[in-house]
């Protein structure tokens, strides 16, 4: 047990060190959230400001948790890329042949993915005042916990895919097939009210919808656009997280 905890810590530590050293990745990590925020957020807000009855600020408030969710989605899924990368460049062998359990490798990776997502999320939160988004301390704590839970689940999903992928191209292809639909069907950009039935169906199948809904619950005073009760959201994300990490551990244990 102690060995496993130590294993988790070592795997986590290495990923974090790498993230902060790989300057291009770090810079993308910082600029991407800000870019999405300003381009998508501001652009769409002014569009909505022109057409909609309510002001543009309303849409900014609405879309901000969506962008937060999007960043978490991207970062988490792609941080599992490190497994494919390590396989390609040989370091995975060093890890696999070491006397640490496969389980602690998966958990360590899932936690490092969550940490990096949280870091990205915090960068977004720093911009919040500029966009007239009001945050207080309890809200920030809740947001961070939500990000951690969501990204833990999503990174696990990424690991699940990465454990079966032998090539970088294969991983990227699957990811692109997953990321875009998950993003568009999450309600990140539009309210989940009065959707066509089939679309509602798909949206409800998407775990990210629940995270974004929960983030909105925490951040918005106006509750008109919420789709589910808060506890349902938390329940769904938690179940998703447990299922994903279990599957990831199971599948990763099968790799030889």
């Amino acid at each position, binding site marked *: 047990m102690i*060995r496993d905890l*130590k*294993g988790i810590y*070592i795997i986590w530590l*290495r990923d974090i*060190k*790498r993230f902060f*050293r*790989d300057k*291009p990745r770090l810079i993308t990590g910082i600029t991407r959230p800000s870019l999405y925020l300003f381009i998508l957020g501001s652009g769409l807000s002014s569009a909505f400001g022109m057409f909609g009855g309510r002001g543009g600020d309303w849409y900014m408030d609405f879309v901000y948790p969506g962008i937060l969710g999007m960043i978490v989605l991207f970062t988490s899924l792609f941080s599992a890329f490190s497994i494919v990368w*390590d396989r*390609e*460049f*040989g*370091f995975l*062998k*060093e*890890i*696999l*042949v*070491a*006397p*640490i*359990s496969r389980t602690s490798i998966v958990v360590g990776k899932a936690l490092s993915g969550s940490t990096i997502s949280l870091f990205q999320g915090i960068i977004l939160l720093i911009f919040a005042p500029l966009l007239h988004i009001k945050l207080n301390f309890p809200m920030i704590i809740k947001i961070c916990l939500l990000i951690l839970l969501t990204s833990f689940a999503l990174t696990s999903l990424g690991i699940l895919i990465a454990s079966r992928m032998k090539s970088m191209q294969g991983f990227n292809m699957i990811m692109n097939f997953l990321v875009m639909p998950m993003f568009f069907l999450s309600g990140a950009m539009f309210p989940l009210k009065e959707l066509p039935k089939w679309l509602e169906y798909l949206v409800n199948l998407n775990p990210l919808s629940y995270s974004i809904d929960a983030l909105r619950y925490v951040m918005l005073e106006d509750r008109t656009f919420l789709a589910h009760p808060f506890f349902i959201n938390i329940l769904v994300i938690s179940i998703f997280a447990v299922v994903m990490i279990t599957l990831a551990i199971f599948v990763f244990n099968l790799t*030889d």
Partner: protein
Amino acid sequence: MNTIISVKKLTKRFKNLTAVNEVSFNVNEGEIFGFLGPNGAGKTTTIDMLCTLLSPTSGEAVLNGYDVTKNRNKVRQCIGLVFQDPSLDDWLTAKENLEFHAMVYNIERKIAKKRIDEVLEIVELKDRKNDLVLNFSGGMKRRLEIARGLIHYPKVLFLDEPTLGLDPQTRNRVWEYIRDLKEKENITIFLTTHYMDEAENCDRIAIIDVGKIIAMDTPINLKKRVRGDIITVETSDNRSLNEELKKKKVKNIIFYNNKIQFEVYDSEKFIPKFIKESKEEIISISARKPTLDDVFLSLTGKKIREETVSGLDRMRKRFKMGRMRR
């Protein structure tokens, strides 16, 4: 002597290619056991199965009493590895790579610190220990990997082409350390190589070709299989010489590089007679004692070639450079 690795009819098939074909052997505790064979012979595949990275298609292997398929975690606990292909984290420093290793192998912090310094000294990387591995040359990376494999004293240390691409000096130093380690810690060493001179350091050698062990013995006994001396001649007409030699009492006639090589019992008497009787003009002639090279040659009819950087490795390098430029 105790048997520490026991392998029975171990086989690995990749689709329709049999990389390792019913290989059986035992390794004794405290021994340096070598797998000698050309590229693609199945050396790495065998190691991968023994160290639990690949499941065998059939057959069994027991290491330190643990079955490598049923008791993987136990096996991992008692082995150490230096892989053939690069396996360092480029974004960590040399020291951090070693620390990572020491941590996953559960070495006490104090001991780890001492050993890290020790092994860095051996491979002469002490002054570069805080540099990112990214900036290391190929040879430096290799040295660091060897250093890493030596940090934890495993029961069995696997070295897959450990000194590939190292200069002779470093190679000697690494060998000194390996022998020292074996003496002091009673570590069993399983290594693969296609350097013949390196194989001579082993207590026993298995010669492997196309997935099969074709000979297994001590280096001295193996060399005894090539009786007498090796003569190499180059003449104006090798073909007619060949016909002539066939009539004489010589063994293992082999053509390579426009030369003919064969074995005779007594070169001192053979050469003067040969020169006198030869109808062809002799361009060059030489005689020498047999080496493991000759053993391999006489067993398989081919030479073990020096390895160049593999295609995959080159591709990786290109890929890495591309990434850095972006």
